């Protein structure tokens, strides 16, 4: 089992002024190297959950652990420098250039100029920012580019965890998809732990290895996209995710979650069945299946070895569920 990066243990948060209980007995384990998305309507306590991690807020009761240590016992500045933080574009320093924003932490840590320059080069390439905009003011960038700068800034000193609070919330749909895809690719490469807050169901399902559904400060379900969609833990989650339809489910579900596992004997690499990657979405798989004109696909892992198979039957569970939604809607 992977190491635990962050763990909430019976966490309560009440705001002194308003008396609002923004977190109620939250228990949550976030594995190192995974993406956890936090999904919920406005005011459900998503942002509070994030800020309890880097101690912008402190727990009223319970504790948050960072790699096994209670964050309340860690020096706050050191903790925050290990945890990247990305919010909607307004979090950038508007009076600074792209380069200066990205180099915020290296500057604070007094790196020498050569090292900073080199790191900014790397980071700009990593988040695919045009080198031309390096000396430009961040105010002159598009929303999408600003988010790239925000991500680069958060990545500057190799944080072990990145917290993202609706980072793509104010960005047009096409750019948003692009940024999501790049974030996924980047996370796969760097194996960084990401906690990502969003109120978009599609975004939460697409990005999260685990999805946390919040409501009024409580976690209603914390599970894989498959289970959230197909085995909602309660009526709230069922209703919440049912606002999306069958096609949404196909975009969110991974082949590996819906396939039939192969027994040891079952996999024949030379089989003529068309192949599909285990990390592909069920939507992509359906296209491949239909185009191939065959009745089954062979699911392969990254090395090309067969790990399962996918048939039209595999889609039945998904469809059955969304038909039920149509019936009740």
């Amino acid at each position, binding site marked *: 089992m992977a190491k635990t990066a962050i763990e909430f243990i019976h966490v309560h948060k009440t705001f002194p002024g308003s008396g609002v209980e923004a977190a109620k007995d939250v228990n949550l384990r976030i594995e190192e190297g995974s993406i956890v998305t936090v999904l919920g309507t406005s005011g459900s306590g998503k942002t509070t959950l994030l800020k309890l991690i*880097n101690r*912008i807020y402190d727990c009223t009761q319970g504790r948050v652990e960072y790699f096994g240590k209670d964050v309340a016992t860690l020096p*706050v*500045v*050191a*903790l*925050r*420098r290990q*945890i990247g*933080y990305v*919010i*909607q574009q*307004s*979090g*950038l*320093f*508007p*009076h600074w250039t792209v380069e200066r924003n990205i180099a*915020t*932490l290296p500057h*604070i840590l007094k790196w020498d100029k050569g090292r900073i320059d080199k790191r900014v080069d790397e980071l700009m390439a990593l988040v695919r920012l045009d080198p031309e905009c390096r000396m430009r*003011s961040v*105010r*002159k960038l598009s929303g999408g580019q600003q988010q790239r700068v925000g991500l680069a*800034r958060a990545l500057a000193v190799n944080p072990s965890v990145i*917290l993202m609070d609706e980072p793509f919330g104010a960005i047009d749909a096409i750019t948003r998809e692009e940024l999501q895809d790049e974030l996924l690719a980047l996370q796969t490469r760097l194996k960084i732990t990401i906690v990502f807050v969003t109120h978009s169901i599609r975004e939460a399902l697409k990005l999260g290895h685990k999805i946390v559904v919040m409501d009024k400060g409580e976690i209603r379900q914390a599970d894989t996209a498959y289970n959230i969609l197909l085995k909602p833990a309660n009526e709230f989650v069922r209703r919440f995710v049912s606002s999306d339809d069958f096609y949404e489910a196909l975009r969110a579900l991974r082949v590996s979650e819906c396939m039939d596992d192969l027994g040891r004997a079952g996999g024949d690499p030379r089989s003529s069945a068309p192949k599909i990657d285990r990390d592909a979405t069920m939507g992509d798989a359906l296209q491949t299946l239909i185009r191939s004109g065959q009745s089954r696909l062979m699911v392969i892992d990254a090395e090309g070895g067969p790990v399962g198979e996918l048939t039209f039957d595999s889609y039945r569970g998904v469809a059955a569920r969304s038909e039920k939604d149509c019936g009740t809607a």
Partner: protein
Amino acid sequence: MPEALAYIESHREQYVDALLAHLTIDAISLLICVAVAAPLGYLGAKCGRLTLPLQNVTGMIRIIPGIAIFLVLIPITGLGQTPAIIALVIMSVPPLLMSAIAGLRSVAPSVVESAAAMGMGRLQTLIEVELPLALPTLLDGLRITTVSLIAGTTIAAYVGAGGLGTLIVSGLSQNKQGVMLAGALTAAAIAIAADAFIAAMRRRALRKISA
């Protein structure tokens, strides 16, 4: 005008003394204004509970005419430079304090929060992030305060503070227009120059933070 120049020619030393005294009072008062407005402005911007009371008090002080402050202070502090400076600070600090509160509060909370979340300390955030972003507003206040000090110092002559006001007072009482004008025009020129200088700084600061 010619009379004023004639006076300056013939009483150069007296004139220069008055001018220097004037500038000294202004400089000291301005430093004190900044020293008062900076911490109070920071508190007023950061502690939600203090914002409104501070704004109300400064708003009230602002309404009181400068001359009234001088008159009220004389029985308490007597005559001379010190009471003049106290009165000048009281009458000129409100715009600076108001602008300090408004300027710091105008910085987007998300920007300040990002700074904190990256492990920047309060002082570092203030110096590197909040002050540059609040600078145009701060300079607005500084401009009004400075001009108010330069003008107010001419009244300070009535409480025996010295400065260009002494020329105005004696010119008026002896009916010597040249002396009066030498004082008044010089004070006006200093005020206009200071105003233009700070306005230029403000434009520069603004260019740095907006497109």
